[in-house]
């Protein structure tokens, strides 16, 4: 049976991708950011999964205003890194896992989550920057990836509670797959940031660290934080943090298992407009 072995959380700032692609990782500005992922890179080598279920949001790249899915699961064989306007990032294409993705889609829809199934999607920095942070610059990504896109662009976005419940449903879906796959689930986006208006540049270290604390030890309670609190405390784009609750909801302690082990925790300000947060939790 397939099993979720760990969850990884990380911000997915576009400037981080640009810094990596342009060879700036050793510059004083960027060096502390990338150093924060040294542990994670080694950990991922030592704990290579068969599949990564990667929760991210599209930033007006694959999805225009023509069609805005609340939750979209990628069941395609592969995904091309998108041209977001700066030209496509020079990173490997993303290989999917159609079989597991279709299984999860079926199971999760039957658990009353109204997914959109996507077979053609270019993937933007929301998906590729977390891979870059955790894998560096490989010829190919280490394993297949199932992209799972969440609408956090147009309101209303799904609530923290809905995201957390979705995580539970994904865990059930994975565990009912009949092949022995080692699956990691990644939650990306955040932490505090605001990209618009006179309030651009908002950073809230206290909120972010409270979020990390509660994500580890009180995810159920954290899931009840309403949207407006994210906007006020973590900036209008800080709402991306709800995606971390999907990954967290898929961990086994939520379903009555033992508490996960915190393998790594990292926090840094700034990367461009954004606070960077990163966490690795292993199931026990």
């Amino acid at each position, binding site marked *: 049976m397939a099993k979720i072995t760990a969850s990884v959380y990380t911000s997915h700032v*576009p*400037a981080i991708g*640009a810094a990596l692609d342009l060879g700036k990782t050793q510059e004083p*500005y960027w060096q502390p950011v990338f150093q924060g992922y040294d542990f994670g890179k080694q950990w991922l080598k030592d704990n290579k999964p068969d599949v990564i279920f990667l929760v991210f949001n599209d*930033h*007006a*790249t694959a999805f*225009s*205003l*023509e069609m805005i899915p609340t939750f979209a699961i990628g069941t395609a064989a592969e995904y091309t890194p*998108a*041209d*977001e*306007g*700066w*030209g496509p990032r020079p990173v490997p294409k993303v290989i999917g896992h159609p079989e597991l993705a279709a299984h999860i889609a079926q199971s999760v829809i039957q658990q009353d989550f109204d997914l959109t199934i996507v077979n053609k999607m270019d993937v933007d920095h929301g998906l590729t920057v977390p891979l870059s942070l955790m894998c560096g610059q490989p010829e190919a990504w280490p394993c297949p990836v199932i992209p799972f896109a969440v609408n956090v*662009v*147009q*309101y*209303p976005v799904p609530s923290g509670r809905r995201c957390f419940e979705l995580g539970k449903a994904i865990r059930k879906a994975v565990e009912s797959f009949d092949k022995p796959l080692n699956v990691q689930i990644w939650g990306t986006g955040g932490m*505090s940031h*605001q*990209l*618009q*208006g*006179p*309030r*651009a*540049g*908002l*950073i*809230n*270290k206290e*909120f972010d660290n409270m979020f990390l604390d509660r994500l580890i030890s009180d995810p159920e309670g954290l899931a009840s934080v*309403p*949207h*407006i609190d994210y*906007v*006020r*405390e973590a900036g*209008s*784009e800080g709402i991306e943090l709800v995606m971390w609750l999907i990954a967290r909801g898929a961990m086994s302690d939520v379903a009555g298992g033992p508490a996960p082990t915190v393998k790594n925790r990292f926090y840094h*300000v*700034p990367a*461009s*407009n954004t*606070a960077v947060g990163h966490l690795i939790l292993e199931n026990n």
Partner: protein
Amino acid sequence: MSLEKPYLDVPGTTIFDAEQSRLGYHLNQFCMSLMKAENRSRFKADERAYLDEWPMSEDQKQAVLARDLNRCISLGGNIYFLAKIGATDGRSFQQMAGSMTGMTEEEYRNMMIGGGRSADGNRIVGEHGDAQAENQPQGEAGRLLKKSPLPASGTAPHPKTPGSEQ
């Protein structure tokens, strides 16, 4: 509109909801078109002509031509869409975000290196943080403004920022 909007009292912040989305539909779809290299070239060759291919309002077109992102947002634009204009101009997300505050690029960058903008005073309209309406524009633009105030005609809520290309 009868949608509940608990987010209208956050200073300096526009939430991109269904109403904004409707208002900005063609503006944002225009931005999406800039994800194709050939469209970026055509836009750069003749911005006005390219804009005229889209059923946008004249206000929206002017805001794009002026690279006035605050104005674009007030007309229904969303930053993730508008970012495609910045990308076409070769500007970073930090340059774009900074341009909406009135700060110079260096001022904004230094604010971020210093830990970013504090949430204190900036949670609710009526507090006294730097993102409140009475404190706009910020930084060098604000200081200039205080020295030589704009003519009283200025109805635009967000004055042009120094970093934006005309």
